[in-house]
C-alpha cells in the first residue's frame, strides 16, 4: 500500500531450538543487512533461550504454494495409498516388520 517505506527490508526468521531438530518459522523482522537481521532476530525471538541457531531470509525470496489451490496442487499423492505401509498384508505370525 505505502510507497515510502523506510522501515528497512523484511526478513523471515527460522529458529532451531535444539541440536538435530529442524529450523521452524518464528516470525519476521526488519533489517538492512544479514548481520542486522540475525541480531534483530536474536533479540526479538530468542530472549529466553528458545534457539541455538537462526536462519534469516529476505521475505521476497520465498515462493509459496496457494492455499486455495491446495486440492489440485497436492492431488498427485491422493491416489497412491501403496506408499503407506498399512497398504500391505503381512502374514500372521511374521514379526519385526
Amino acid at each position, binding site marked *: 500500500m505505502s510507497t515510502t517505506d523506510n522501515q528497512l527490508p*523484511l526478513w523471515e526468521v527460522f529458529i532451531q531450538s535444539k541440536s538435530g531438530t529442524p529450523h521452524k518459522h518464528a*516470525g519476521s523482522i526488519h533489517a538492512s543487512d544479514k548481520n542486522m537481521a540475525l541480531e534483530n532476530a536474536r533479540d526479538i525471538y530468542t530472549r529466553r533461550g528458545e534457539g541455538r541457531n537462526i536462519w534469516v531470509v529476505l521475505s521476497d525470496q520465498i515462493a509459496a504454494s496457494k492455499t486455495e489451490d491446495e486440492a489440485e496442487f497436492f492431488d498427485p499423492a491422493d491416489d497412491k495409498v501403496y506408499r503407506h505401509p498399512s497398504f500391505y498384508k503381512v502374514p500372521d505370525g511374521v514379526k519385526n516388520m
Partner: protein
Amino acid sequence: MKTAEEKLKDFDAYIESEEKIEPKDWMPDEYRKTMIRQLSQHAHSEVIGMQPEGNWVLRAPSLRAKKILLAKIQDEGGHGLYLYSAAETLGISRDEMIEQLHSVKAKYSSIFNYPALTWADIGAIGWLVDGAAIVNQISLQRTSYGPYSRAMVRICKEESFHQRQGYEIMTTMMNGTAEQKEMAQDAMNRWWWPSLMMFGPPDNESAHTKQSMQWKIKRESNDVLRQRFIDKTVDQAHFIGITVPDKNMKFNESTQHWEISPIDWEEFKQVISGNGPCNHKRLSHHIKVHKQGKWVREAALAFSKNQQKNKATLFTN
C-alpha cells in the same frame, strides 16, 4: 471462477470449522480491515506501553528491580514487533501504521494515557494492566487469523512473568511500612477502574463485537473477559490485604461472581478521545523518537548498499 458471494460463503464455513486464515488466503475486505485495525492497535499499545514504565528505569529501588523492569520493557517492545509483523502480512506497511498512529487515525489502549506516579504504580501496572491484558490475550490465542494467533501464543508465554513481577512488588509493599502500604493502596485506587475499562465498552454498546465474534476474530465478549479478570483479581487483592476501591462490590453466591458498581464510561470516552492525563505526552514522545531515528535507518541502508557494491567489485576484479 467463484462469485464473491460463493467465496464469502466458503470463507464463513472455513472459519466455522475452526480453521485458521493465512496471509495469502482470500478474505473479505471487511475482515482484512478489521484485522489490520485490531492488530495495529494492539501493536501500538505494546509500544506506547513502554513509556509509563520507562519513566521508572532510572529510579528503580534496587539493581534487581531495575534489571527486571528493563527486561519487561524489552518484552513489550518485542511484543509490539511480533504484532506489527503479523499486521504487515495483511498488506499494510510498518510506515503506514506508524503514520496512522501519529495522525491519531489508529488508536492504542487508553490505559497508557495514565501516568505512573510512584514505584507502586509499576507494581499495579504489572499486576492489573498486564493481568487484564493476559485474560484478553489468552482468549485471542484462538483468534481466526493464523499470524495473530501465533503471536498471541508467544506473547502469553512471556506475559505471565510480567504479572508476577507486578504482584511481587505489591506484596512487598503491603508487607512494608505504613507509608509503603499507603502507596500500594493509592496505586490500586488509581489503576483499578482504568484496568476494567481495558476490556472495552459493555457488550450492548460495542461497535465491533458482533461481526468480530462471527469471524472468530474475538472469541469472547468484552463483558465476559472483564468478569473473568475481576473474579481472579479480587481474590488476589484480598490475599495481600489491599482494598478494591469499590464500596458496593459484593460476591454473588448463586452466580459465584463478584459484582462491581457501574463503570464510569464517560471517563473512558474522554480518555480515548484524547483528553486523558498523558495522551499528548505519549504521542509527542513517540513522534519525536521516530524522527530522531530517521538518520539511523538511512545510514543502515546506505551501509548495506555499499557492502553489496564492494562485494560486486570484488567478484568482477
